[in-house]
Structures are given as structure tokens and as C-alpha cells.
């Protein structure tokens, strides 16, 4: 029987449209492989840089009513170190290495290294809302964004996903910029800048004070971003932000996503969430008489 859930995105063959979101359990090859075995169609690493980075001191995460605010500060051992992890992820699912860097040149070098150690594709983190001179500091500047994507594309042959920040005047402009610069796919979205103050002590709780909001609070914002981008670009979109049920996943697919990423919801639902979401999508497709998940991508744009 045909696999209704199979999808090709920017040349990657996914057995289903669910992916692990960047920065979630993505430092260890064995953990990534466990996520793939739990059902994820693709796995994305923690954002890796050229140098090791310790991240911010704790507290790095705060619970809010409808999600989390986090400022981990991109802790990672550096791309080189990841060589010893990558062997564990072989042949379980396509591996996307998320990279960050502090300049155009560095992005090109980081991309090359990531491909060399075995990335099937790259995701450029130009959207982390709480790191300085990287992440959203790049994604918010159309010129810089264009240069970074161009430089990365020139340096590697593997598909390049560009992960966008919603902390901009117009995510459509960012999406078009990335597409024009050669991006093969877009991931939308990273977290929204946010913070929490403890009123008893009058202190911002995160050591970095400001972090990024993830989880269900983000969902209607992320759906809107995917919907807007879908009308503006021709490259595939990976939806991300607050997905915790198969219904959420279908909403993103109908908004225009070709695949979706799951992060925060893992805290609550465990790694089983990938299988749950996939089973839900499959049953939905069957009920509605669709033969492939591709048939519902962007469907909400077609209806009156």
C-alpha cells in the first residue's frame, strides 16, 4: 500500500511530515535517533556553531499559562564535536543540522562543516530571539539575511532551510528575501520575544531576562505566518509553533506547510507524540478521502 504520509520536501524523502524542532533534544545523536524511532519523519539538531558555547546560566526556561519562555543561549559543543554523535543518526531518518554563526563567512564555513560531517540538509537559525549578533539579529535585517542565505547556498549543495523569526514587520518580506537568495525551504516560525517577571522578588526570572515564547500560545501566530508565506513564495514551508495534536498539524498543512515540527509539546506528551500526530493525520486523510498528505497542503487557500 502507498504511504499516504510520505512527502518530499526540498529533495528530502520523509516517511511522514513530522519533524523534531531545532533545539529540542538535539545535542545527542542517540537521543535524535530515539526521536526518529519514535516516529519523526526527520530530525533537526540543536543549533550548532563553529565554537562550543555554554549558553546562559539557569533559569533558562519558565512555564507560562500557554507555553514556555526559554532563553537557553544556544548551548552547544560546536559542529566538529557533533561528528561523534552523527553516527548514531545514520539511516533512521533524514538529518537536518541547524547552524548559527556570527557573519556571512562563518555561515558558509559552518555549512560546509555540517555537510562534511553528514548533514542531509541544513537549517539556518537566523531567528533565535535572545542571542546577540546571530539568530534574529540576522533574520530581522533583510540585507544580512540575503547575504547569509546566498553565502550558504554557494558553499554547499545540500538543501538549505531558512528558519524565520516572527519578530519582524513582515515575515512575508523575510520569506521572499530568503527565497530570492536561494533558500530551498522555509521553517516558520521560531519563538516570539517574551519575558516573565516574578512579582514576589520583582525579578525577571530568566537569567537572560528576555527569551522566546513557544507552545500553544504561539500557534495562531505561526499558522498566520505559514498562511501569509504560502501565498508569497514557491518553495516549501515547514510549519512550527505550538503543535501538540494531529488537528494542529492538519491546520498547519492546510495553511500551507509541507511538513511540521514539534518542540514544546514533547514535554507534555512525550516522544510518542510523533506517532500520535501521524496516526491522526492518516485517519483524517482516510476519512476525507485524500490519497496523500500532499493534497491538503495549502487547502485553506482554495476555499471561499
Amino acid at each position, binding site marked *: 500500500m502507498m504511504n499516504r504520509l510520505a512527502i518530499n520536501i526540498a529533495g528530502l524523502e520523509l516517511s511522514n511530515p513530522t519533524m523534531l524542532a531545532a533545539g529540542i533534544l538535539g545535542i545527542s545523536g542517540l537521543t535524535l535517533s530515539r526521536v526518529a524511532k519514535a516516529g519523526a519523519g526527520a530530525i533537526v539538531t540543536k543549533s550548532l556553531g563553529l565554537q562550543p558555547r555554554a549558553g546562559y546560566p539557569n533559569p533558562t526556561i519558565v512555564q507560562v499559562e500557554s507555553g514556555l519562555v526559554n532563553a537557553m543561549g544556544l548551548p552547544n559543543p560546536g559542529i566538529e564535536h557533533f561528528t561523534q554523535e552523527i553516527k548514531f543518526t545514520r539511516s533512521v531518518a533524514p538529518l537536518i543540522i541547524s547552524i548559527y554563526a556570527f557573519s556571512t563567512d562563518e555561515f558558509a564555513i559552518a555549512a560546509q562543516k555540517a555537510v562534511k560531517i553528514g548533514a542531509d540538509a541544513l537549517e539556518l537559525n537566523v531567528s533565535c530571539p535572545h542571542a546577540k549578533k546571530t539568530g534574529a539579529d540576522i533574520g530581522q535585517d533583510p540585507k544580512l539575511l540575503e547575504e547569509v542565505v546566498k553565502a550558504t547556498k554557494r558553499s554547499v549543495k545540500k538543501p538549505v532551510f531558512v528558519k524565520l523569526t516572527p519578530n519582524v514587520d513582515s515575515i512575508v518580506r523575510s520569506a521572499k528575501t530568503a527565497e530570492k537568495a536561494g533558500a530551498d525551504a522555509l521553517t516558520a516560525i521560531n519563538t516570539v520575544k517574551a519575558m516573565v517577571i516574578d512579582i514576589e*522578588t520583582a525579578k525577571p526570572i530568566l537569567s537572560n531576562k528576555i527569551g522566546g515564547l513557544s507552545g500553544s500560545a504561539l500557534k495562531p501566530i505561526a499558522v498566520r505566518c505559514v498562511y501569509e508565506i504560502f501565498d508569497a513564495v514557491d518553495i516549501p514551508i515547514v510549519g512550527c509553533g505550538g503543535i501538540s495534536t494531529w488537528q494542529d498539524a492538519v491546520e498547519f498543512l492546510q495553511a500551507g506547510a509541507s511538513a511540521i515540527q514539534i518542540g514544546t509539546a514533547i514535554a507534555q506528551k512525550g516522544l510518542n507524540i510523533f506517532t500520535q500526530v501521524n496516526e491522526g493525520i492518516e485517519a483524517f486523510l482516510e476519512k476525507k478521502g485524500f490519497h496523500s498528505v500532499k493534497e491538503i497542503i495549502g487547502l485553506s487557500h482554495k476555499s471561499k
Partner: protein
Amino acid sequence: MSTITQKINFLRIVEIEKIVRESPTVKTFFFADELSAQGKPGQFIMVWIPGYDEVPMSISSTCSDDLVSITVANVGEATRIMHKQEAGGILGIRGPFGNSFSPVKGKALLVGGGTGIAPLVFLAAELAKLKTKLTFLLGAKTKEELIFLSYIKAIISRTKGKINAATEDGSFGHKGVVTELVETTLAKEKFDKIYACGREPMLYKIFELSNMHKISLQMSLERIIRCAIGLCGSCTIGKYRVCADGPVFTSNQLQEVVNEFGKLKRDFNGTKISV
């Protein structure tokens, strides 16, 4: 995310009601918190020292009036600030997190080193309720660092169990390390379960001994905890997350991660370093 995970993960500000000095470097802090008071032996909470750090601490006791305790060794900045606090001071807490020891009936061997004794004391109290026969082996550098000694003696006498201690300087009990006591004890006696908590080289040795004697084992591990809810990946050992899959692991699970257990851990940037 209107689930239990979310509820437990909300930060609560609590007032320290009582502080008990257990040793020159260890203090127990008591405070009231409804959710933590439902915690089980082996579970931990995240303790925010406002303005400084947030660190994982095992629950060392709970009480029906919602009073909970953690037992803290003064080892670095956050724990130093905590040790300076007095009753009336405040802490931010979230949790309890992680799994817990599963209590066994019959005969249990408990092996605790340093502050690793704390969660085992909590466990011992639970096991005593099940009338499990306890053998408690403690280890520390000096007699002064043997925490909870009289409390353990009281539990043990109620359950007709045994207690034995080792100090590195020989100031109390066996002179040497606690694993030597484990070795001699296992040579003489059979147990239904071994529970252990302490430094990883000690745990690894006990893991080997339990394998040798084919006794089922549960031990609590430590790795760097950031999110405590299974997301960030700071705390992995092999394919497992200490915060969400642990902190208590069985012999079988430890076997699966034997390439790292006792050998490698990750530092704050995720680089593997030796334990």
C-alpha cells in the same frame, strides 16, 4: 498545555520555614509546597535562588502538612548562597520532576554516598511502611559528613534492619569507601533490590557488583539539568534524559548506556567529558 506537566512546572515562591544543619557542608531546608509534598523518593525539584541560579535538588522528605525538604551540600555559588539563607528567606521552586524509586517488599540494600544519602532516607521511610527489611550502607569522607545517621538508625531499628558505614578517614565505621562494604555484604547475603545514590564512580562499582550477583538495581544519576521537562537535552546519558526518563534508572537501562555510564557526561555546552 493545560496538563499536569504544566501545573508542576509553574514557578512557586516559597518561604524557608526551617533550616537544619546536617554536617559542616550540608543543610536541610524545609518549606511548604503542595505539589512537591506529593513527590516520591527519587524525584527532584528545581530550586531558583533569585538573582543567582536554578539547581536540581532531590526531595529528602515530605509531610502530610505539605512541608517538604531538600538536603543541600555547599559545593558552589548557588549552594553557597543557599547556605547563607535563614528561615524566612525565599526560594523559587518548580517540580517535582522525574521518575522515582519503585519500592520493593522483602529485602533491600540501600547504598548512599554524601548527599546521595538524602533521597535514600526518604525511600527508606517509604520502604519501612511496607515492612521491607533494610540494610543501609553509608559512605562519607569523615564521620561529620555522615548525614542522617541517627534518623536512619531509628528507621532501621523499627524494621530490624542493619546499618553500616564507611569513612575515608576511618573516623567512623569501616575505613575506606562504601563500595567495599557493598562487596562484603553481597558476598554474604541476598537482596531483592539494591537502591543507590551518590557519586558516579561509586554507582558504577555498585552496578558491576549487582550484575555479578544478579540483583536487580535502581540508582539515581546526575547530569546537568536545565529545563527539567525533557526538552533541552542537557541531561542526556545515551538515549535517555535524566530529567524525564530518570533520574532513577534500572540495571537494564544502565546496561543500554554503558558506553557513557560511569565514564562520560556532558558539560554545560554539551561536550562529552569524563565523569
